[in-house]
């Protein structure tokens, strides 16, 4: 309980820091939001009016103070370009973002755990080398390429999955698998090295000496002890995916938060950029908090420390 309270205070400080840094960076940009909204034909008076209406003619500190006070009352502000509440725009994209995040992490972990464990058991052999090479290819292949290849093969040519959009289970398969394939390599490497460590431990040797089956040794004794770093990695991935995976979203027409952020950056729509950044930061904090809370359940040694 104390941990949660301490983490919540930390989270608030982190979010405040993120808000301040992002705000200053955005306003330091050599780009004028009022000019972008006003468009090409606007008179200087129109631009000045827009700047005034948005409060952009006030000193930076004053603007930040207004932003913070709105934020504390749960108001993320209004989009400059869309003239809609930022929260409405982000909330509309949360279901798709969360779905893709869950699917991506599921495939990553499933593949990573399986391949990493197999590689550790077959350490130094052909299978190990094959898995390591595959994980290297997976992590270094551009997401755009993997996404297009899967799309072309499984959706366009074979017609097994829809090419685009957000809807039923079939829609999430390709984007989820793309994210999974590109991210599983990290998990596989991590699991492999943790498993190798664990498999050399005395208790594993003891388990084997007691005559337990290899499967039982690995699943019951080794894997739970090797899984800890995976939990931490999932925590990080939650934050990363919640910030949007622009490329995968673009290829599969997935209405996630990344597309919203990308368009806002093009339009210098500061309230949306701030909103997405804070959402992403909040997700990272929550992801890490969850990882910290789950770790002691998986590994009782952490509880006793």
């Amino acid at each position, binding site marked *: 309980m104390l941990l949660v309270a301490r983490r919540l205070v930390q989270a608030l400080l982190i979010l405040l820091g993120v808000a301040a840094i992002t705000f200053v960076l955005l306003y330091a940009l050599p*780009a004028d939001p009022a000019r972008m909204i006003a468009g090409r*034909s606007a008179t200087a008076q129109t631009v000045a009016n827009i700047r005034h209406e948005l409060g952009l003619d006030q000193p930076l500190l004053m603007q930040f103070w207004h932003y913070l006070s709105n934020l504390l009352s749960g108001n993320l502000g209004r989009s400059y370009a869309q003239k809609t509440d930022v929260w409405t725009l982000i909330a509309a994209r949360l279901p798709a973002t969360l779905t893709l995040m869950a699917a991506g992490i599921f495939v990553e972990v499933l593949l990573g755990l399986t391949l990493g464990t197999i590689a550790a058991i077959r350490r130094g052999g052909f299978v190990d080398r094959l898995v390591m090479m595959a994980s290297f290819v997976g992590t270094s292949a551009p997401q755009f390429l993997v996404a297009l290849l899967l799309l072309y093969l499984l959706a366009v040519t074979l017609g097994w999955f829809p090419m685009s959009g957000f809807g039923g289970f079939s829609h999430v398969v390709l984007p989820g698998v793309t994210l999974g394939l590109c991210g599983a390599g990290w998990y596989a490497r991590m699991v492999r090295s943790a498993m190798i460590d664990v498999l050399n431990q005395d208790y594993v040797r003891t388990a084997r000496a007691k005559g337990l089956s290899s499967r039982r040794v690995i699943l019951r004794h080794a894997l739970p002890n090797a899984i800890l770093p995976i939990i931490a990695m999932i925590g990080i991935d939650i934050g990363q995916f919640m910030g949007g995976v622009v490329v995968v979203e673009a290829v599969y027409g997935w209405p996630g938060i990344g597309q919203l952020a990308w368009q806002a950056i093009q339009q210098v729509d500061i309230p949306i950029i701030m909103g997405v950044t804070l959402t992403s930061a909040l997700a990272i904090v929550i992801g890490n908090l969850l990882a910290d809370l789950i770790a002691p359940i998986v590994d009782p040694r952490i509880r006793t420390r």
Partner: protein
Amino acid sequence: MFKRWLQTTTVATVLALAPLSAMSAMAQDAPKQGGEIVVTYKDDITTLDPAIGYDWVNWSMIKSLYSRLMDYKPGTPDLEPSLAESFTVSPDGLTYTFKLRKGVKFSNGREVVASDVKYSIERAVNPKTQGPGAGFFGSIQGAEDVTGGKSETLSGIETPDAGTVVFKLSRPDATFLHVLAINFASVVPKEAVDAAGGDFGKKPVGSGTFVLKDWTIGQKLTFERNKDYFVKDMPHIDGFTVEVGQEPLVALLRLQKGEVDIAGDGIPPAKFLEIKNSADGAKMIVDGEQLNTGYVTLNTKVKPFDNVKVRQAVNMAVNKERITRILNGRATPANQPLPPLMPGYDKSFKGYAYDVAKAKALLAEAGFPKGFETTLYSTNTDPQPRIAQAIQQDLAAVGIKADVRALAQANVIAAGGTEGEAPMIWSGGMAWIADFPDASNFYGPILGCSGAVPGGWNWSWYCNKDLDARAIAADSMSDPAKSAERTAAWGKVFTDIMADAPWVPVINERRVVAKSLRMGGADNIYIDPTRVINYDAIYVNQ
């Protein structure tokens, strides 16, 4: 009277568009009614509020959701009354009186009355709306008081009865009818704007050809035919769904599979030739001219571009043909600021021909026999950096060493509007597309003295008081009898400006739209000069 006026004012337009009109006539055989289509775009739709929306994607949709006093005949830049039944112009060109059509209804069921027209334009001009359109209405009496925050009503708009709107102008404005046809003049019901609570852009109510039925943010918008629209058999399709967030390459694959009818972002350069050379390529590709010119600005306030000979030399150094090849031939070389479709374009004008030897000689004459170093700004999305690099190579051939600085669009715009900052800017990705088909729209903000201010769009910072005076004189010719003279006067402004060479007019880029084989209608309603896709006029063949 009005008919004759229109005939006179559009003589030049008709001449310029003769081939287009012929094409249109050929393909416009009996449009069919019914059917629903799917359209895709990469970018999300920002807003459908006519006082705010100002990008090329929402422009077409706003056109179809609302009606205005004036509009254009589909596929042409020819003005015609729309919400207005008729109108008269006073001999001094300062008073325009419009009679509204009777029985036109908003999609909320209420009849459109004169006070709605007044409210809508006042709303577009009001600073609180934060819209980009206020400047267009600057000639209406009292506009300055509203933009300056002194008043919320325009004294120059009167509504003597529910069916009459009278505009009083502070100066003759030959473009005024065009101004009443642009999206910012769309008529909206006040009660719906108030009810939307600042979110009218997502809950639009108009009296146009279509009604917004549903909007799933970030995914799709569904438009349904307005059954009560005041023109019989318009629109032709029963509805259309706009799917957003669609990568152009994937949209094209979906179009080939029959899932999409119009890929709004066109064909990615990598796929263009493949599609063009395919069996159905010709039927799928709509490749049309638009009112667009891509140019390089030469900053007259930055050395050595303050020297006219240097600017002329740069004009001769750029190989425009090669740039059209980078775009797979989807552009034609330009030699003057006006695009060929624009009334006033001078076909006989030759401009500066590509001539490396002459360019070198001019540079030597200007005191730069070994060239100089400079910076060329460009936006950072393909193919713009590649075009900037081609220009960079051309400049190197005459001894000018240009450093290409490819930045996000907002940063390039900011650099252009900062005095002394950007010596050269390639306008690609931000190239000027006319708001309405009149030559004046290509002058003030981008070449006139009023645009050569901090934050302005005249990135050459070129200010020629004589040409400004001629521009004002041309725009004052609101007498219909002088329209041909006015068009010629404007044309001469743009060819004369080239003597000072503040720009390198590089290309007139054509727009490419990909459509499915079942779609019918002439090319010029898919790349309509005033609205890109004309949802009112397109139809489904089966």
